[in-house]
């Protein structure tokens, strides 16, 4: 008999953890929805309208979180900035998936020259850390949020394609694909109807674990001026804008930062949940 395990994390403990997380996420969503409704339906501030007489105001009913150094409403910009950050991150993620998944399926299923070519490219990309490539590419393309998204897509699609390829490789050996093949199903049908649904879970987990990182990357690069440009209300750029006023108005530093932290936390929680849900083990962890 082996010694008794100190503590086993059971299915019940996991589901309890997840239900707590779900409540937190729901509360957060409610808060955002309520704040958005109030801001965009009642207050209706222009996010880029400067008002130098009303700059750096404290909180009031008209400006629930005050105004920034150009007199713009902070809450409005914060909420729009959330849309920006999340929107661009999802865009980058989605585009990388759209390119990576078909590439991976074809490379893994058809093998041959497609696969060889792909592996060469992937080795090259992996030989060089992706964050540097993203920085350099966005540098070569010129600073701007669009180019940053493009750079992220260029470096990220490879990792998804690789994951899909290796999953497809192991799936192709299994009986249900062999049977489908001997039954004369077309390759296209096997790839879209049989392989794609099977890899969806793995890809979803990896993508959701990446979401938080991409959000952090976009806001970091926006902070140092390589991403969203002013007057776009992006969180990292907002932090950069308000840095000179930190002594007098520290809350200008607190709001966007807390916004980034909470969104990334939620994204990581989602990834964690999906990993347990699809029971994907460490193979997916970066």
């Amino acid at each position, binding site marked *: 008999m082996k010694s008794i395990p100190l503590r086993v994390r059971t299915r019940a403990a996991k589901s309890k953890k997840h239900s707590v997380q779900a409540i937190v996420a729901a509360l957060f969503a409610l808060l955002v929805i309520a704040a958005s409704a109030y801001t965009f339906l009642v207050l209706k501030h222009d996010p880029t309208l400067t008002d130098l007489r009303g700059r750096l105001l404290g909180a009031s009913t008209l400006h629930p979180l005050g105004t920034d150094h150009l007199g713009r409403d902070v809450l409005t910009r914060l909420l729009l900035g959330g849309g920006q950050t999340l929107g661009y991150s999802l865009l980058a993620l989605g585009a990388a998936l759209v390119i990576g998944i078909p590439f991976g399926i074809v490379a893994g299923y058809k093998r041959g020259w497609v696969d060889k070519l792909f592996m060469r490219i992937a080795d090259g990309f992996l030989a060089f850390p992706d964050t540097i490539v993203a920085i350099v590419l966005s*540098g*070569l393309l010129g600073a701007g949020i669009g180019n940053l998204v493009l750079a992220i897509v260029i470096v990220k699609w490879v990792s998804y394609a690789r994951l899909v390829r290796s999953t497809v490789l192991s799936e192709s050996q299994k009986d249900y694909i062999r049977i489908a093949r001997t039954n004369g199903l077309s390759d296209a049908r096997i790839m879209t109807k049989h392989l794609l649904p099977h890899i969806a879970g793995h890809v979803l987990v990896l993508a959701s674990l990446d979401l938080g990182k991409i959000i952090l990357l976009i806001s970091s690069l926006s902070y140092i001026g390589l991403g969203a440009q002013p007057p776009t209300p992006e969180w990292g750029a907002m932090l950069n804008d308000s840095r000179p006023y930190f002594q007098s108005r520290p809350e200008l530093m607190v709001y966007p*930062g807390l916004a980034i932290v909470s969104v990334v936390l939620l994204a990581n929680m989602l990834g964690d949940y999906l990993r347990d849900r699809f029971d994907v083990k460490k193979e997916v962890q970066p």
Partner: protein
Amino acid sequence: MFRILLRKFLEVFIFLLFIMFVSFLFIRLAPGDPVLTILNVDELSVSQEQVEAMREEMGFNDPLLVQFGNWLLDFVRLDFGSSYSTGQPVMQTLMSALPATAELTLGALLVMLLIAVPLGSLSAVYRGSWIDTLSRMLSIVGAAVPSFWLGLILIDLFGVRFGNLPTMGRDGFASLILPCVTLGLAISSVYVRLLRSSLLDSLSQEFVRSARARGLSEGRIFWLHALRHSLPPVITVFGVSLGSLIGGVVVIEVLFAYPGIGKLVVDAIRQRDYPLIQGYILIMAVVVFVVNTAVDLSYRYLNPEMKLKEKEAHR
């Protein structure tokens, strides 16, 4: 061993060549005339003749193929020309900023180790205790905090409100504290979690029980047996996440106006100073190669099985 190194080197080299070529194309084809960029830096009103003369001087009027040939020759000679914005030779500029970046990076890694090793170890040894809960919470939150925001908070707290640590530039040891602590904290959350799970795995191994049964002390078992057994996964992740470390260095250097190569390259990107960007890529390629090699060598030290297997494979 040699063959593996050679392969790694070739991979990095081919990709480097590829990126260099892409950047060459960008320089020539990108919107915005580099000549105007160069001349604008001097804040002079520029005449059409001056632009033409500059264009001729820099060889932009030659056919593209000739330009590429010249570029390739320069590349082989490791000559990246002069910075568009300062006129200084690129390599010299970068090399003089490299020690500053190395100091910052090594300092941050030291801070990371000082956080991750005790916290990861304690939470693995005292699993389920308050310190484990605390370190788990910290690493979950830590993974979500952007490094530049953390830096801003630390600047506000220790540079302004409760202390007067230097928050800008590079002037002696004190000016390293905030940047290193910021970056070290930012990267430590990953390693705390990783070391914890890896140690938990090692400590539950049979060899630990055997060592205990032989009367070895807990300290000896931990430091000389379990910890070393837990290191390979940690080192793997270090190698894999080298990019985010370098990216983090860039952000921190900009945040603290720290004169390293990260800040140089961001300034270069803003000013479309392509020669400098190229030089940066080359240096990063060398760094990546060196770190990857070090990671490989450390595996072989930590796990003699690998070394011996390789020997047999070569026989």
